[in-house]
């Protein structure tokens, strides 16, 4: 086939205008030729015989009149065994291998294969010749770390196929044909262990979408108890700079009860990714005893990397997540920060001179955000197994003000909102999720009545606290004062959690159920105090003891002892009936 070639006629930042003759497609990928470098770019608008293309690289040195080679494909990623543990840029370039090849700096126009061709995988067939199969069904499996990685009928296959041949058990590379399948009209297709898939198209080889109900336990108490996330659900974490969005995502990526975690570092600091990629291989996944890296894929397009590839990075992430969902796994995608992706859209839109919406974001911002989060979800697969993709995105609103297009657009579509507040982070009350503003549509790990009672106590306590600023402690009744102390107690010993303490950092669901019921009991005990000072002293003591309790291993002697001590302290002050 002759290559389809266009000519550059305009250059403005990372946007080029290209004159073309043969047919091209919206979102088709091309390569702009600059000397001996070929720079990947994508069609974003077509007008007559001119295509506007965003270049995923620095455009220095491009000339009017230079060639653009169209590829015929949309922006796609390689899917297959070997994705786990990888560190990719937004275009699925493996960064460690790029570093081996190019040294300290990224080199534009260098694209390496995402999966290694020469690696051998231990293949076990799961079908026989003559079987009928459809897209997404398993032909065989290979072990990938701790998982059985399914080799599936390519997702692009339409209708039913018959297995013509299937290779016998053995070790093969991803390039070898492992099966041949034949469609209804007799066309055959060779299947290898990898397939390419366009990132902007959802993978939908399942029978139905289900309503997310089971909690995805993050082991962050304020999340699981008060603002839970469901397996297959979506949540967002907006907050001003320094409020703790990234730390919260790092904790979640370590402790969340998901099979696979995909971290999309989108337009944020390189240093933060370095922490993850240097530390994860050393950390043990308590569920498997293996390194945490074994269940992780990092997609990293940090703030100084080319802006257009930022957008690609979240799509690359979600596509890999959907791929593993097809195998019946529970995948968690964490994107930090979706605002940077929205800003990339804004830059592109500005260069296209589109009519701007609010704060110069494009008018279609909301629908783009909505269709991204729609790709999450719990599904029933063709083999009746379930798989899920849970999506959590941070949002970085300008000036920390949630009343802006990206936060608002996101709030409309997600199932849980974990709003971080500057006041709480300034007071070092971490995680700084605002317990009064945040909300969720999913079900808590603890009984609902307990949560609701605790929430209303929190809001009453906060009101009393506000009043006290005006009238002083002198002007506050002892009953109100105790209520205030109770809400502060709940905040200090349950909502706040020490991310850097071995035990306190992660609280499993059963522990949350146990501890929260004890704390609820304390909160709703009628207490008797002589004066405010006595009440304050008492709450200081139980706060200290409860914090110690948080730091003991559940099931240990200390755990039982501390709990007993706490309950004894409470019975001392319990009002006689």
């Amino acid at each position, binding site marked *: 086939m002759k290559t389809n070639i266009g000519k550059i006629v305009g*250059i403005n930042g990372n946007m080029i*205008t290209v004159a073309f003759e043969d047919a091209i497609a919206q979102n088709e990928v091309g390569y702009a030729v600059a000397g001996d470098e070929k720079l990947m770019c994508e069609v974003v608008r077509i007008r007559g015989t001119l295509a506007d293309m965003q270049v995923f690289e620095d455009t220095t040195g491009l000339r009017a009149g230079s060639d653009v080679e169209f590829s015929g494909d949309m922006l796609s990623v390689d899917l297959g065994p070997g994705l786990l543990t990888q560190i990719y840029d937004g275009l699925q370039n493996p*960064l460690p291998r790029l570093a081996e090849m190019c040294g300290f700096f990224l080199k534009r126009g260098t694209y390496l294969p995402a999966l290694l061709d020469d690696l051998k995988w231990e293949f076990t067939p799961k079908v026989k010749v003559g079987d009928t199969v459809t897209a997404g069904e398993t032909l065989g499996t290979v072990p990938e770390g701790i998982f059985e990685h399914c080799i599936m009928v390519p997702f692009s296959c339409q209708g039913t196929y018959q297995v013509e041949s299937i290779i016998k058990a053995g070790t093969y590379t991803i390039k070898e044909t492992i099966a041949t399948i034949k469609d209804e009209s007799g066309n055959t297709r060779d299947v290898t262990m990898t397939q390419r898939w366009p990132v902007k198209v959802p993978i939908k080889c399942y029978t139905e979408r289900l309503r997310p109900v089971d909690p995805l336990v993050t082991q962050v108490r304020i999340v699981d108890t008060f603002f839970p996330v469901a397996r297959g659900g979506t949540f967002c974490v907006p907050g001003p700079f320094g409020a703790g969005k990234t730390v919260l995502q790092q904790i979640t990526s370590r402790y969340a009860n998901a099979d696979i975690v995909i971290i999309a570092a989108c337009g944020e*600091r390189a*240093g933060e*990714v370095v922490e993850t990629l240097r530390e994860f291989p050393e950390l043990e996944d308590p569920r498997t005893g293996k390194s945490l890296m074994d269940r992780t894929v990092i997609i990293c397009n940090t703030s100084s990397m080319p802006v257009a590839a930022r957008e690609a990075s979240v799509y690359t992430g979600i596509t890999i997540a959907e791929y593993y969902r097809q195998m019946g796994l529970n995948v968690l995608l964490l994107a930090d920060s979706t605002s940077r992706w929205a800003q990339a859209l804004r830059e592109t839109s500005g260069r296209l001179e589109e009519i701007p919406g609010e704060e110069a974001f494009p008018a279609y911002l909301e629908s783009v955000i909505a269709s991204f989060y729609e790709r999450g979800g719990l599904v029933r697969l063709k083999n009746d197994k379930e798989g899920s993709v849970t999506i959590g995105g941070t949002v970085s609103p300008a000036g920390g003000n949630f009343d802006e297009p990206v936060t608002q657009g996101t709030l409309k579509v997600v199932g849980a909102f974990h709003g971080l507040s500057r006041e709480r982070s300034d007071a070092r009350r971490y995680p700084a999720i605002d317990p009064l503003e945040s909300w969720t549509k999913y079900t808590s790990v603890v009984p609902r009545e307990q949560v609701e009672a605790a929430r209303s106590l929190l809001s009453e306590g906060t009101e009393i606290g506000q009043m006290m600023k005006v009238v002083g402690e*002198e002007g506050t009744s002892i009953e109100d004062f105790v209520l205030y102390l109770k809400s502060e107690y709940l905040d200090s010993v349950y909502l706040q959690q020490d991310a850097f303490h071995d035990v306190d950092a992660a609280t499993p669901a059963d522990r949350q159920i146990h501890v929260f019921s004890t704390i609820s009991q304390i909160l709703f005990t009628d207490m008797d105090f002589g004066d405010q000072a006595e009440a304050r002293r008492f709450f200081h003591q139980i706060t200290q003891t409860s914090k110690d309790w948080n730091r003991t291993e559940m099931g240990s002697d200390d755990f039982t002892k501390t709990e007993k001590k706490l309950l004894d302290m409470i019975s001392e002050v319990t009002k006689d009936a």
Partner: protein
Amino acid sequence: MHKVYHRIDNIAGNVVSIKADDVQYKELAEVVSRNGSSLAQVIKINGDDVALQVFAGARGVATDAQVRFLGKTMKVPFSDALLGRVFTGGRDPRDNGPALTENMIDIGGPSVNPAKRIIPRNMVRTGIPMIDVFNTLVESQKLPIFARAGEPYNQLLARIALQAEVDIIILCGMGLKHDDYLYFRDTLEESGALSRTVMFVHTASDPIVECILAPDVALAVAEQFALQDKRVLVLMTDMTNFADAMKEIAITMEQIPSNRGYPGDLYSQLASRYEKAVDFDTAGSITILAATTMPGDDVTHPVPDNTGYITEGQFYLRNGRIEPFGSLSRLKQQVNGDTREDHRTIMNTMIQLYANFKETLEKQSMGFRMSKWDSKLLKYGERFEKEMMDLTVNIPLEEALDLGWQILADCFEPMETGIHSKLIEDFWPNYAEQAKRS
């Protein structure tokens, strides 16, 4: 030979456009007209319409000016001969030294592969307790000083530069007042640090385009030194001027502004400079300290706001002191565990008590009764401000920690500080004697 063009079609702001072919995006050109000559850079190509940004500004450029394309992009000379020299933002000599033309390197180069970065691990000692004790600066950190115009942020930058143990200092001035430039030069000279310093200074009276070039030039040079295994400290002052220069240019280019007139890519533009801060696997490092003045003393203004989302913390300079609240070094925990065992405890305890002192002050101003505890706090707060926060205090970390213990001991009983007993026994001044007496 490069073609020369003679006919300028449009002039708007600092941008001229001509008809030309076969030019490269971002290529440099020389624009010569009767009133002088300047370099210019291609910023937009549309068919054969080529828009050029003129570094010296378009003032006085005539429609018959000669435009000669140079076939290359913006570069800066790099060698040890840079040391001790002063250049403009457009990298022309500002001192009387010779122009350097050898070993030209690209500016605004690609970013570092994240896989080649390492987790920062070295403390940068400044002798300022508010930094060393409470918000430790770490090699390769990027950290701005947020301040109102008029605060002594340049003095603070100069002081850190002189006391930090770094190999190379690079000063990048953007819209710098001439007096401030002289202040930096003289201060560095007096202390003998000039010979390991390179300055790229754009002053308020220089062409605006050079204000945007200055950080790229300075950081490209910094990067080369870092690759030669040097620890480089880059001082950038004032990044708000840099952002304002971008705003000015964006508006004359009729770009759609996003927030208070600033272009939509403000975040990416700032980030691509700040992210040059790096600790290289197997080579040197770049640490960036910047001044960001806050118009109207408002952190939610787009420049400090976007900056906060990029940098690894910030120092708030208010009334000549580094505020303990709001100031944050996000990398401090990488290093303050290995300094001295009491470091973290002193840091947390003293700040906590200072917060209590602030509450007491508030209660006092509302006319509420002062308890005995309140008067202890008042005494403590006064000493903390005078002996720790005052920027004239200049002592090494260990002395500052000792001083912390002394202040605590002079104001409180050991148990009132909430410090655990092991540390109290080891560090509380005269603890053994006190224990014996009681």
